Protein backbone atom coordinates (compact mmCIF):
# COMPACT_ATOMS: atom_id res chain seq x y z
CA UNK A 1 0.00 0.00 0.00
CA UNK A 2 2.66 2.51 1.04
CA UNK A 3 4.74 1.58 -1.98
CA UNK A 4 1.76 2.28 -4.22
CA UNK A 5 0.94 5.57 -2.52
CA UNK A 6 4.56 6.67 -2.71
CA UNK A 7 4.77 5.78 -6.37
CA UNK A 8 1.55 7.59 -7.24
CA UNK A 9 2.64 10.75 -5.48
CA UNK A 10 6.05 10.49 -7.13
CA UNK A 11 4.41 10.15 -10.52
CA UNK A 12 2.03 13.02 -9.80
CA UNK A 13 4.93 15.29 -8.99
CA UNK A 14 7.27 14.02 -11.68
CA UNK A 15 4.92 13.56 -14.61
CA UNK A 16 4.13 17.25 -14.26
CA UNK A 17 0.62 16.16 -13.36
CA UNK A 18 -0.78 16.43 -9.87
CA UNK A 19 -0.70 19.56 -7.80
CA UNK A 20 0.10 22.46 -10.03
CA UNK A 21 -2.28 21.75 -12.79
CA UNK A 22 -5.41 20.88 -10.87
CA UNK A 23 -4.89 24.09 -9.01
CA UNK A 24 -4.23 26.11 -12.14
CA UNK A 25 -7.43 24.83 -13.68
CA UNK A 26 -9.33 25.89 -10.57
CA UNK A 27 -7.81 29.34 -10.86
CA UNK A 28 -8.60 29.58 -14.55
CA UNK A 29 -12.24 28.61 -14.25
CA UNK A 30 -12.69 31.16 -11.49
CA UNK A 31 -11.04 33.77 -13.69
CA UNK A 32 -13.13 32.90 -16.73
CA UNK A 33 -16.49 33.27 -15.06
CA UNK A 34 -16.25 37.06 -14.65
CA UNK A 35 -15.33 37.35 -18.32
CA UNK A 36 -18.59 35.61 -18.99
CA UNK A 37 -20.96 37.22 -16.53
CA UNK A 38 -19.31 40.64 -16.46
CA UNK A 39 -17.36 42.56 -13.85
CA UNK A 40 -20.06 43.91 -11.50
CA UNK A 41 -18.74 43.27 -8.01
CA UNK A 42 -21.97 42.70 -6.13
CA UNK A 43 -23.18 40.26 -8.75
CA UNK A 44 -19.94 38.33 -8.49
CA UNK A 45 -20.11 38.36 -4.72
CA UNK A 46 -23.55 36.77 -4.83
CA UNK A 47 -22.53 33.91 -7.09
CA UNK A 48 -19.06 33.48 -5.56
CA UNK A 49 -19.76 30.46 -3.31
CA UNK A 50 -21.51 28.56 -6.04
CA UNK A 51 -18.86 29.31 -8.64
CA UNK A 52 -16.03 28.36 -6.28
CA UNK A 53 -17.62 25.00 -5.54
CA UNK A 54 -18.48 24.25 -9.14
CA UNK A 55 -14.94 25.19 -10.17
CA UNK A 56 -13.40 22.99 -7.45
CA UNK A 57 -15.64 20.16 -8.56
CA UNK A 58 -14.68 20.56 -12.20
CA UNK A 59 -10.96 20.64 -11.52
CA UNK A 60 -11.29 17.54 -9.35
CA UNK A 61 -13.15 16.03 -12.28
CA UNK A 62 -10.46 16.81 -14.82
CA UNK A 63 -7.84 14.96 -12.81
CA UNK A 64 -9.94 11.86 -12.30
CA UNK A 65 -8.98 9.94 -15.42
CA UNK A 66 -5.39 9.87 -14.20
CA UNK A 67 -6.44 7.73 -11.26
CA UNK A 68 -6.53 4.40 -13.09
CA UNK A 69 -6.21 5.03 -16.83
CA UNK A 70 -2.42 5.37 -16.88
CA UNK A 71 -1.89 2.13 -14.99
CA UNK A 72 -4.43 0.51 -17.25
CA UNK A 73 -2.83 1.55 -20.50
CA UNK A 74 0.67 0.46 -19.67
CA UNK A 75 -0.66 -2.80 -18.28
CA UNK A 76 0.48 -2.30 -14.71
CA UNK A 77 -3.09 -2.48 -13.40
CA UNK A 78 -3.36 -6.06 -14.64
CA UNK A 79 -0.07 -6.81 -12.96
CA UNK A 80 -1.29 -5.19 -9.74
CA UNK A 81 -4.41 -7.35 -9.91
CA UNK A 82 -2.21 -10.46 -9.90
CA UNK A 83 -0.17 -9.05 -7.00
CA UNK A 84 -0.77 -9.62 -3.27
CA UNK A 85 -2.53 -6.24 -2.87
CA UNK A 86 -6.31 -6.51 -2.56
CA UNK A 87 -8.13 -4.48 -5.23
CA UNK A 88 -10.01 -2.60 -2.52
CA UNK A 89 -6.70 -1.45 -1.14
CA UNK A 90 -5.57 -0.31 -4.57
CA UNK A 91 -8.77 1.67 -5.09
CA UNK A 92 -8.54 3.32 -1.69
CA UNK A 93 -4.88 4.22 -2.06
CA UNK A 94 -5.50 5.65 -5.51
CA UNK A 95 -8.35 7.79 -4.20
CA UNK A 96 -6.17 8.98 -1.34
CA UNK A 97 -3.36 9.90 -3.71
CA UNK A 98 -5.84 11.82 -5.83
CA UNK A 99 -7.10 13.75 -2.84
CA UNK A 100 -3.60 14.63 -1.69
CA UNK A 101 -2.68 15.91 -5.13
CA UNK A 102 -5.95 17.68 -5.89
CA UNK A 103 -8.47 18.06 -3.09
CA UNK A 104 -6.00 19.33 -0.53
CA UNK A 105 -4.46 22.03 -2.75
CA UNK A 106 -7.92 23.12 -3.87
CA UNK A 107 -9.04 23.50 -0.28
CA UNK A 108 -6.08 25.70 0.55
CA UNK A 109 -6.45 27.78 -2.62
CA UNK A 110 -10.18 28.34 -2.21
CA UNK A 111 -10.01 31.38 0.06
CA UNK A 112 -7.38 33.10 -2.08
CA UNK A 113 -9.46 32.77 -5.20
CA UNK A 114 -12.45 33.91 -3.20
CA UNK A 115 -10.81 37.33 -3.29
CA UNK A 116 -11.07 37.42 -7.10
CA UNK A 117 -14.83 36.98 -6.80
CA UNK A 118 -14.84 39.46 -3.90
CA UNK A 119 -16.23 36.82 -1.60
CA UNK A 120 -16.74 38.47 1.77
CA UNK A 121 -13.93 37.56 4.21
CA UNK A 122 -16.34 36.58 6.97
CA UNK A 123 -17.33 33.36 5.22
CA UNK A 124 -13.78 32.20 4.47
CA UNK A 125 -13.64 29.83 7.46
CA UNK A 126 -16.84 28.13 6.37
CA UNK A 127 -15.54 27.90 2.81
CA UNK A 128 -12.38 26.23 4.06
CA UNK A 129 -14.33 23.84 6.24
CA UNK A 130 -16.78 22.88 3.51
CA UNK A 131 -13.99 22.23 1.02
CA UNK A 132 -11.92 20.28 3.53
CA UNK A 133 -14.90 18.10 4.40
CA UNK A 134 -16.27 17.81 0.89
CA UNK A 135 -13.29 17.19 -1.38
CA UNK A 136 -12.48 13.68 -0.07
CA UNK A 137 -15.93 12.64 -1.23
CA UNK A 138 -15.12 14.04 -4.66
CA UNK A 139 -11.97 11.92 -4.85
CA UNK A 140 -13.62 8.68 -3.74
CA UNK A 141 -16.67 9.07 -5.95
CA UNK A 142 -14.31 10.00 -8.74
CA UNK A 143 -12.20 6.90 -8.17
CA UNK A 144 -15.32 4.81 -8.58
CA UNK A 145 -16.22 6.59 -11.80
CA UNK A 146 -12.67 6.21 -13.07
CA UNK A 147 -12.83 2.49 -12.33
CA UNK A 148 -16.03 2.16 -14.34
CA UNK A 149 -14.68 3.93 -17.40
CA UNK A 150 -11.10 2.70 -17.24
CA UNK A 151 -11.56 0.21 -20.06
CA UNK A 152 -12.59 2.85 -22.59
CA UNK A 153 -9.82 4.68 -24.36
CA UNK A 154 -10.10 8.37 -23.46
CA UNK A 155 -13.22 7.61 -21.43
CA UNK A 156 -12.55 10.95 -19.76
CA UNK A 157 -15.71 12.55 -20.99
CA UNK A 158 -18.01 9.66 -20.26
CA UNK A 159 -16.37 9.62 -16.88
CA UNK A 160 -17.51 13.16 -16.17
CA UNK A 161 -21.03 12.28 -17.22
CA UNK A 162 -21.16 9.38 -14.80
CA UNK A 163 -19.55 11.25 -11.97
CA UNK A 164 -21.15 14.68 -12.10
CA UNK A 165 -24.62 13.45 -11.07
CA UNK A 166 -22.99 11.61 -8.17
CA UNK A 167 -21.37 14.89 -7.20
CA UNK A 168 -24.65 16.74 -6.86
CA UNK A 169 -25.27 16.07 -3.16
CA UNK A 170 -21.74 17.05 -2.22
CA UNK A 171 -22.04 20.19 -4.30
CA UNK A 172 -25.40 21.18 -2.85
CA UNK A 173 -24.41 20.76 0.78
CA UNK A 174 -21.01 22.33 0.26
CA UNK A 175 -22.17 25.40 -1.62
CA UNK A 176 -25.27 25.71 0.57
CA UNK A 177 -23.10 25.86 3.69
CA UNK A 178 -21.12 28.77 2.29
CA UNK A 179 -24.20 30.55 0.93
CA UNK A 180 -26.04 30.29 4.24
CA UNK A 181 -23.16 31.70 6.23
CA UNK A 182 -22.78 34.43 3.60
CA UNK A 183 -26.42 35.34 4.32
CA UNK A 184 -25.46 35.33 7.99
CA UNK A 185 -27.31 32.09 8.86
CA UNK A 186 -25.72 29.08 10.54
CA UNK A 187 -24.00 26.61 8.24
CA UNK A 188 -23.79 23.85 10.87
CA UNK A 189 -26.36 21.39 9.53
CA UNK A 190 -25.16 21.72 5.94
CA UNK A 191 -21.60 20.92 7.04
CA UNK A 192 -22.85 17.97 9.09
CA UNK A 193 -24.73 16.54 6.14
CA UNK A 194 -21.67 17.11 3.97
CA UNK A 195 -19.57 15.18 6.48
CA UNK A 196 -22.11 12.37 6.40
CA UNK A 197 -21.86 12.11 2.63
CA UNK A 198 -18.07 11.99 2.79
CA UNK A 199 -17.96 9.30 5.46
CA UNK A 200 -20.52 7.16 3.68
CA UNK A 201 -18.74 7.30 0.32
CA UNK A 202 -15.31 6.64 1.81
CA UNK A 203 -16.71 3.61 3.63
CA UNK A 204 -18.55 1.98 0.74
CA UNK A 205 -17.33 3.12 -2.67
CA UNK A 206 -13.85 1.55 -2.57
CA UNK A 207 -15.52 -1.87 -2.61
CA UNK A 208 -17.68 -0.93 -5.55
CA UNK A 209 -14.63 0.45 -7.34
CA UNK A 210 -12.67 -2.76 -6.74
CA UNK A 211 -15.51 -4.89 -8.06
CA UNK A 212 -15.80 -2.77 -11.18
CA UNK A 213 -12.06 -2.92 -11.77
CA UNK A 214 -12.12 -6.71 -11.65
CA UNK A 215 -14.94 -6.78 -14.19
CA UNK A 216 -13.07 -4.46 -16.52
CA UNK A 217 -9.89 -6.49 -16.22
CA UNK A 218 -11.74 -9.70 -17.00
CA UNK A 219 -12.97 -8.53 -20.40
CA UNK A 220 -9.91 -6.54 -21.37
CA UNK A 221 -7.59 -7.21 -24.30
Amino acid at each position, binding site marked *: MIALLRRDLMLAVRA*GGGFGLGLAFFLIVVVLVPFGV*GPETELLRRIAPGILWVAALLSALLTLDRIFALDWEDGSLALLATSPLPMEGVALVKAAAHWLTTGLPLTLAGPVLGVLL*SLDPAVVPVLLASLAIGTPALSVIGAFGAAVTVGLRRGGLLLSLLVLPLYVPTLIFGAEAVRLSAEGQGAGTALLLLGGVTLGTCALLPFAAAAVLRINLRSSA
Partner: protein
Amino acid sequence: MSIWEYANPKRFIAVSDRVVPWLSWLAAVLLVVGLGWGFFFVPRAENFEYSVKIIYVHVPSAMMAINIWVMMLVASLVWLIRRHHVSALAARAAAGVGLVMTVMALFTGAVWGQPMWGTWWAWDPRLTSFLILFLFYLGYLALWAAVEDPDAAADLTSVLCLVGSVFAVLSRYAVNFWNQGLHQGATLSLDAEENIADVYWFPLLVCLAGFVVLFLALVFVRTTTEIRLRRVAALQRREAMA
Protein backbone atom coordinates in the same frame (compact mmCIF):
# COMPACT_ATOMS: atom_id res chain seq x y z
CA MET B 1 33.30 39.72 -33.24
CA SER B 2 29.52 39.43 -33.31
CA ILE B 3 27.30 39.13 -30.26
CA TRP B 4 26.55 35.56 -31.35
CA GLU B 5 29.96 34.68 -29.98
CA TYR B 6 28.34 34.85 -26.57
CA ALA B 7 25.88 32.16 -27.59
CA ASN B 8 28.71 29.79 -26.88
CA PRO B 9 27.87 28.50 -23.40
CA LYS B 10 31.42 28.57 -22.09
CA ARG B 11 31.96 32.14 -23.16
CA PHE B 12 28.54 33.11 -21.86
CA ILE B 13 29.30 31.66 -18.45
CA ALA B 14 32.66 33.40 -18.40
CA VAL B 15 31.04 36.75 -19.19
CA SER B 16 28.22 36.34 -16.72
CA ASP B 17 30.62 35.33 -13.97
CA ARG B 18 32.43 38.57 -14.60
CA VAL B 19 29.43 40.90 -14.75
CA VAL B 20 27.11 39.40 -12.16
CA PRO B 21 28.91 40.80 -9.09
CA TRP B 22 28.86 44.31 -10.54
CA LEU B 23 25.23 44.07 -11.56
CA SER B 24 24.26 42.78 -8.14
CA TRP B 25 25.96 45.63 -6.30
CA LEU B 26 24.59 48.21 -8.70
CA ALA B 27 21.09 46.81 -8.26
CA ALA B 28 21.46 46.80 -4.47
CA VAL B 29 22.59 50.42 -4.42
CA LEU B 30 19.91 51.65 -6.81
CA LEU B 31 17.14 49.84 -4.94
CA VAL B 32 18.29 51.02 -1.52
CA VAL B 33 18.55 54.60 -2.75
CA GLY B 34 15.34 54.54 -4.74
CA LEU B 35 13.17 52.79 -2.19
CA GLY B 36 14.73 54.64 0.76
CA TRP B 37 14.17 57.94 -1.01
CA GLY B 38 10.68 57.04 -2.00
CA PHE B 39 9.68 55.68 1.38
CA PHE B 40 11.23 58.21 3.73
CA PHE B 41 12.11 61.43 1.93
CA VAL B 42 9.08 62.09 -0.20
CA PRO B 43 6.60 64.62 1.23
CA ARG B 44 3.19 63.15 2.05
CA ALA B 45 0.80 63.74 -0.79
CA GLU B 46 -2.50 65.47 -0.25
CA ASN B 47 -4.61 63.47 -2.71
CA PHE B 48 -2.89 60.12 -2.16
CA GLU B 49 -2.56 58.94 1.40
CA TYR B 50 0.42 57.16 2.86
CA SER B 51 -0.09 54.01 0.82
CA VAL B 52 1.09 55.87 -2.27
CA LYS B 53 4.60 54.74 -1.43
CA ILE B 54 3.71 51.27 -2.66
CA ILE B 55 4.04 52.75 -6.11
CA TYR B 56 7.82 52.39 -5.79
CA VAL B 57 7.48 48.63 -5.77
CA HIS B 58 4.28 48.28 -7.69
CA VAL B 59 4.99 50.18 -10.86
CA PRO B 60 8.52 48.86 -11.43
CA SER B 61 7.47 45.28 -10.85
CA ALA B 62 4.43 45.71 -13.08
CA MET B 63 6.49 47.24 -15.85
CA MET B 64 9.17 44.56 -15.54
CA ALA B 65 6.54 41.84 -15.68
CA ILE B 66 5.35 43.12 -19.00
CA ASN B 67 8.74 43.86 -20.51
CA ILE B 68 10.23 40.55 -19.44
CA TRP B 69 7.66 38.79 -21.56
CA VAL B 70 8.81 40.86 -24.52
CA MET B 71 12.40 39.87 -23.81
CA MET B 72 11.33 36.22 -23.70
CA LEU B 73 9.67 36.68 -27.04
CA VAL B 74 12.91 37.93 -28.55
CA ALA B 75 14.94 35.14 -26.99
CA SER B 76 12.48 32.56 -28.30
CA LEU B 77 12.77 33.97 -31.79
CA VAL B 78 16.54 33.81 -31.57
CA TRP B 79 16.33 30.17 -30.57
CA LEU B 80 13.89 29.30 -33.32
CA ILE B 81 15.93 31.05 -35.96
CA ARG B 82 19.54 30.61 -34.90
CA ARG B 83 19.26 27.53 -32.64
CA HIS B 84 21.44 28.93 -29.87
CA HIS B 85 20.66 26.86 -26.79
CA VAL B 86 21.72 29.67 -24.48
CA SER B 87 19.02 31.89 -25.90
CA ALA B 88 16.31 29.36 -25.15
CA LEU B 89 17.64 28.82 -21.65
CA ALA B 90 17.75 32.57 -21.09
CA ALA B 91 14.08 32.74 -22.01
CA ARG B 92 13.32 30.10 -19.43
CA ALA B 93 15.42 31.87 -16.83
CA ALA B 94 13.66 35.16 -17.51
CA ALA B 95 10.24 33.55 -17.28
CA GLY B 96 10.89 32.61 -13.66
CA VAL B 97 11.74 36.19 -12.77
CA GLY B 98 8.80 37.47 -14.79
CA LEU B 99 6.42 35.25 -12.87
CA VAL B 100 7.70 36.60 -9.56
CA MET B 101 7.42 40.18 -10.83
CA THR B 102 3.86 39.53 -11.91
CA VAL B 103 2.99 38.14 -8.51
CA MET B 104 4.63 41.14 -6.84
CA ALA B 105 2.67 43.56 -9.00
CA LEU B 106 -0.54 41.70 -8.29
CA PHE B 107 0.17 41.55 -4.59
CA THR B 108 1.29 45.16 -4.12
CA GLY B 109 -1.55 46.23 -6.33
CA ALA B 110 -4.01 44.30 -4.20
CA VAL B 111 -2.57 45.74 -1.00
CA TRP B 112 -2.77 49.17 -2.54
CA GLY B 113 -6.24 48.63 -3.80
CA GLN B 114 -7.51 48.10 -0.29
CA PRO B 115 -6.96 51.72 0.83
CA MET B 116 -7.41 53.33 -2.59
CA TRP B 117 -10.48 51.56 -3.93
CA GLY B 118 -11.60 49.83 -0.78
CA THR B 119 -11.23 46.44 -2.41
CA TRP B 120 -8.44 43.93 -2.86
CA TRP B 121 -9.39 43.21 -6.38
CA ALA B 122 -11.46 44.78 -9.10
CA TRP B 123 -12.03 43.52 -12.62
CA ASP B 124 -10.36 46.58 -14.05
CA PRO B 125 -8.92 46.07 -17.56
CA ARG B 126 -5.34 46.78 -16.50
CA LEU B 127 -5.57 44.37 -13.61
CA THR B 128 -7.42 41.77 -15.62
CA SER B 129 -5.01 41.73 -18.51
CA PHE B 130 -2.30 41.43 -15.91
CA LEU B 131 -4.00 38.40 -14.45
CA ILE B 132 -4.06 36.91 -17.94
CA LEU B 133 -0.35 37.65 -18.33
CA PHE B 134 0.12 35.77 -15.07
CA LEU B 135 -1.68 32.78 -16.57
CA PHE B 136 0.57 32.92 -19.62
CA TYR B 137 3.65 32.82 -17.41
CA LEU B 138 2.21 29.83 -15.56
CA GLY B 139 1.45 27.92 -18.73
CA TYR B 140 4.83 28.73 -20.25
CA LEU B 141 6.75 27.47 -17.24
CA ALA B 142 4.49 24.46 -16.80
CA LEU B 143 5.24 23.46 -20.37
CA TRP B 144 8.97 23.78 -19.79
CA ALA B 145 8.62 21.58 -16.75
CA ALA B 146 6.45 18.99 -18.48
CA VAL B 147 8.49 18.20 -21.58
CA GLU B 148 11.35 15.74 -21.09
CA ASP B 149 13.53 16.28 -24.12
CA PRO B 150 15.26 19.65 -23.58
CA ASP B 151 15.43 20.72 -27.22
CA ALA B 152 11.83 19.81 -27.85
CA ALA B 153 10.88 21.73 -24.72
CA ALA B 154 12.75 24.77 -26.04
CA ASP B 155 10.99 24.53 -29.40
CA LEU B 156 7.53 24.02 -27.94
CA THR B 157 7.82 26.81 -25.39
CA SER B 158 9.16 29.17 -28.04
CA VAL B 159 6.20 28.55 -30.32
CA LEU B 160 3.89 28.89 -27.34
CA CYS B 161 5.57 32.20 -26.51
CA LEU B 162 4.95 33.50 -30.03
CA VAL B 163 1.33 32.45 -30.16
CA GLY B 164 0.82 33.55 -26.57
CA SER B 165 2.14 37.04 -27.27
CA VAL B 166 -0.36 37.56 -30.07
CA PHE B 167 -3.20 36.40 -27.87
CA ALA B 168 -1.97 38.48 -24.93
CA VAL B 169 -2.28 41.63 -27.02
CA LEU B 170 -5.62 40.44 -28.32
CA SER B 171 -6.93 39.85 -24.81
CA ARG B 172 -5.75 43.32 -23.78
CA TYR B 173 -8.13 44.85 -26.32
CA ALA B 174 -10.84 42.36 -25.56
CA VAL B 175 -10.64 43.22 -21.88
CA ASN B 176 -10.83 46.95 -22.61
CA PHE B 177 -13.89 46.32 -24.72
CA TRP B 178 -15.34 44.32 -21.84
CA ASN B 179 -14.89 46.82 -19.04
CA GLN B 180 -13.61 50.37 -18.61
CA GLY B 181 -11.88 50.54 -15.26
CA LEU B 182 -10.69 52.67 -12.38
CA HIS B 183 -6.96 51.95 -12.62
CA GLN B 184 -4.47 54.77 -13.16
CA GLY B 185 -3.59 55.50 -16.77
CA ALA B 186 0.00 55.46 -17.92
CA THR B 187 1.38 58.18 -15.71
CA LEU B 188 4.82 57.73 -17.16
CA SER B 189 3.70 58.82 -20.56
CA LEU B 190 6.13 61.15 -22.28
CA ASP B 191 4.00 64.30 -22.54
CA ALA B 192 4.85 66.18 -19.39
CA GLU B 193 1.51 67.62 -18.24
CA GLU B 194 -0.04 64.35 -17.19
CA ASN B 195 3.06 63.22 -15.33
CA ILE B 196 2.85 62.91 -11.58
CA ALA B 197 4.84 65.55 -9.66
CA ASP B 198 8.63 65.23 -9.96
CA VAL B 199 9.05 64.58 -6.25
CA TYR B 200 7.38 61.20 -6.81
CA TRP B 201 8.80 60.84 -10.25
CA PHE B 202 12.58 60.79 -9.63
CA PRO B 203 12.74 58.11 -6.92
CA LEU B 204 10.39 56.10 -9.10
CA LEU B 205 12.89 56.32 -11.93
CA VAL B 206 15.69 55.16 -9.63
CA CYS B 207 13.58 52.21 -8.51
CA LEU B 208 12.82 51.34 -12.11
CA ALA B 209 16.54 51.37 -12.93
CA GLY B 210 17.17 49.26 -9.85
CA PHE B 211 14.60 46.67 -10.92
CA VAL B 212 16.01 46.51 -14.43
CA VAL B 213 19.56 45.93 -13.20
CA LEU B 214 18.33 43.40 -10.64
CA PHE B 215 16.52 41.59 -13.43
CA LEU B 216 19.67 41.47 -15.53
CA ALA B 217 21.67 40.06 -12.64
CA LEU B 218 19.04 37.42 -11.91
CA VAL B 219 18.74 36.42 -15.54
CA PHE B 220 22.48 35.98 -15.85
CA VAL B 221 22.63 33.85 -12.71
CA ARG B 222 19.63 31.74 -13.62
CA THR B 223 20.72 31.27 -17.22
CA THR B 224 24.15 30.03 -16.19
CA THR B 225 22.42 27.71 -13.74
CA GLU B 226 20.19 26.37 -16.48
CA ILE B 227 23.22 25.91 -18.73
CA ARG B 228 25.08 24.00 -16.05
CA LEU B 229 22.02 21.85 -15.31
CA ARG B 230 21.77 20.86 -18.94
CA ARG B 231 25.49 20.25 -19.04
CA VAL B 232 25.17 17.89 -16.07
CA ALA B 233 22.27 16.08 -17.70
CA ALA B 234 24.31 15.70 -20.88
CA LEU B 235 27.28 14.29 -18.99
CA GLN B 236 25.04 11.87 -17.14
CA ARG B 237 23.56 10.70 -20.45
CA ARG B 238 27.10 10.05 -21.69
CA GLU B 239 27.72 7.97 -18.58
CA ALA B 240 24.61 5.98 -19.35
CA MET B 241 25.62 5.44 -22.96
CA ALA B 242 29.28 4.64 -22.39
